[in-house]
C-alpha cells in the first residue's frame, strides 16, 4: 500500500516570498504523484502531476515540483507567492500502471498555505 506524508500542516509566508511545501511518499512499487489545491469551499483542482520523464514538473499558477526517487519526495515550490495562493494543498499518490483492483488516489493530510501581506 502507498502512503503520503505532508509534514507541515500550516505554512505561513509573506506575499512575493518563495515557498516550498513538502511531500514524502512510501510505496513498494512505482507510483504516479500529484499535487491538488483546494480553495476555501471549493473542490480539488489539479496543480501538476508526475507520471514519467523529466523529474521537474511544471504546473498551473507558477507552481513546480520535483520528483526525487531516492528521497521518495515530491516537494512543491513557487518562487513568488500571491495572496490568491492561500489554500489547502494536497499531495497524492497512486500506483503506476493499471492494477486489477482498480487504482485510487491516496492523499496526504494537506498543508494550509497562508499568504500574508
Amino acid at each position, binding site marked *: 500500500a502507498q502512503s503520503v506524508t505532508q509534514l507541515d500542516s500550516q505554512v505561513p509566508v509573506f506575499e512575493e516570498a518563495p515557498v516550498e511545501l513538502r511531500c514524502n511518499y512510501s510505496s513498494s512499487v512505482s507510483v*504516479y504523484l*500529484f499535487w*491538488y489545491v*483546494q480553495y476555501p469551499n*471549493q*473542490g*480539488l*483542482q*489539479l496543480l501538476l*502531476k508526475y*507520471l514519467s520523464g523529466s523529474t521537474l514538473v511544471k504546473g498551473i499558477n507558477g507552481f513546480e515540483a520535483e520528483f526525487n526517487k531516492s528521497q521518495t519526495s515530491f516537494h512543491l515550490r513557487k518562487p513568488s507567492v500571491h495572496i490568491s495562493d492561500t489554500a*489547502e494543498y*494536497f499531495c497524492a499518490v*497512486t*500506483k503506476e*500502471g*493499471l492494477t486489477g*483492483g*482498480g*487504482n*485510487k*488516489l*491516496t*492523499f496526504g*493530510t*494537506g498543508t494550509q498555505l497562508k499568504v500574508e501581506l
Partner: protein
Amino acid sequence: DTAVSQTPKYLVTQMGNDKSIKCEQNLGHDTMYWYKQDSKKFLKIMFSYNNKELIINETVPNRFSPKSPDKAHLNLHINSLELGDSAVYFCASSPGPLYTEAFFGQGTRLTVV
C-alpha cells in the same frame, strides 16, 4: 459547462434519515469515484466504478450504497444517517481506471444533526 457536478452542494438532515447525493460528469470518462473529506480535511476514497461496474469498495459501512445508472452518473445513497457521517463528499472522474488524472466536483457538505 461544469465537468463534474454534484447536487446538492449543502445537505443538512437529522439522524436516522436516508439521503442521496447525485453526481454527473460530462467529460466522457469511464471511471468515477466517491471520496470523503472529514473535519480535519483528510480525504479517503470510498468507492470507484468503471463503466458502471464497482471496482473499488473500501471499508465503508453498508449504509452507504453507490449506484451507477450509466457511466456518466454515480450517485451515493446513505441510509440511517449518523452524526459521524457529517463530512464533505467529493465525486471525481478519470478517463479510465489507469489513474493519470482525476477531476473533482465541488463537493457536498453533509451535516447530520
